């Protein structure tokens, strides 16, 4: 199965969720700033890369984990990709789209905007890391739901939309 975590810029919330999923970040404690910066794609994705499927790794069940920045496509992305997948005869049980944006807090938004949009990395990065640490358990919850609830029953349960702790 291919699992896509998507958010606005594909730099913070989707990367964090995918990293938790793959065990790159712990699910029993909040990581340090250094640990976040060791995650591939964390706070580095550029605007021109948005819309691309970025491969993060393969989990223990051999599911391929991807991230994507989907910008203003927002709520249209899931029906669009699911619809195209249906037309191209891709089985629904082979694709799971997970919106990680609902877990994002204002600190992450401001930090992400300053770092990615404005290019003020020195100012934005510490803020976005603080915000990600504050919302960390929401991301853990999203991933736990995906791994333990959604993936085994994906074929019959449909699509997860954000964190609902």
């Amino acid at each position, binding site marked *: 199965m291919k699992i896509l975590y998507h958010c606005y810029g594909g730099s913070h919330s989707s990367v964090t969720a995918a990293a938790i999923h793959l065990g790159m970040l712990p699910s029993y404690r909040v990581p340090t700033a250094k640990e976040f910066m060791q995650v591939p794609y964390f706070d580095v994705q550029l605007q021109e890369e948005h*819309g691309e499927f970025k491969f993060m790794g393969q989990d223990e069940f051999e599911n391929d984990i991807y991230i994507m920045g989907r910008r203003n496509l927002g709520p249209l992305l899931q029906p669009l990709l699911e*619809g195209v997948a249906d037309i191209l005869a891709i089985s629904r049980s082979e694709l799971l789209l997970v919106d990680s944006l609902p877990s994002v807090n204002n600190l992450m938004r401001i930090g992400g905007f300053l770092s990615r949009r404005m290019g003020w990395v020195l100012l934005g990065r510490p803020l976005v890391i603080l915000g990600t640490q504050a919302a960390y358990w929401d991301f853990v919850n999203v991933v736990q739901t995906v791994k333990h609830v959604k993936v085994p029953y994906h074929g019959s349960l449909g699509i997860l939309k954000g964190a609902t702790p």
Partner: protein
Amino acid sequence: MKVFYYCCSGIHAAAVAAALHLGHISGPPEEAVRELERFKYFDYHPPSAVRGTPLFMGSDTGGNQVYTIPVDRERFLAPKAIRGLMRIFKIPVEEILLVDTLKHTTTVMKLGAFVSQKIGLKVAGRRILYWAVEKTFDRYTRQVEQVKKDILSLETQGALKMTGSGNNKEV
């Protein structure tokens, strides 16, 4: 082959191009607009459950399936995401054709769409939309003609590949 015409809403510029492609509208702009009034997917309000999904418009004479899709303001990002999906599932990108009709969307058309879809004044909104389509109809005609040529060319290349004499250039 599957042809996807896309615009902001998937029900205005994309629907005009799809209708033209399928032969639901034709001829001089004034006549085409009259035919467009009978085309049910133009300024169609899809049920919320299917909003955002590709709308199947029909199959053309060559058996190609024609769809419209909404991409909001993401005219570059949405096609990239679709091609990305195909790549990760190892589906040849030549199986689909993504056609940008957003370039035909004029300010008047946006106004008509807003009046019809957001304010809910269907009659007034559609009058504005029909007028906007009539003024830009030549652009749609040229684009759809080009799309049909591209389909033929892709099919020829595909046939050549099947016989082993085609080049492997990605389109």
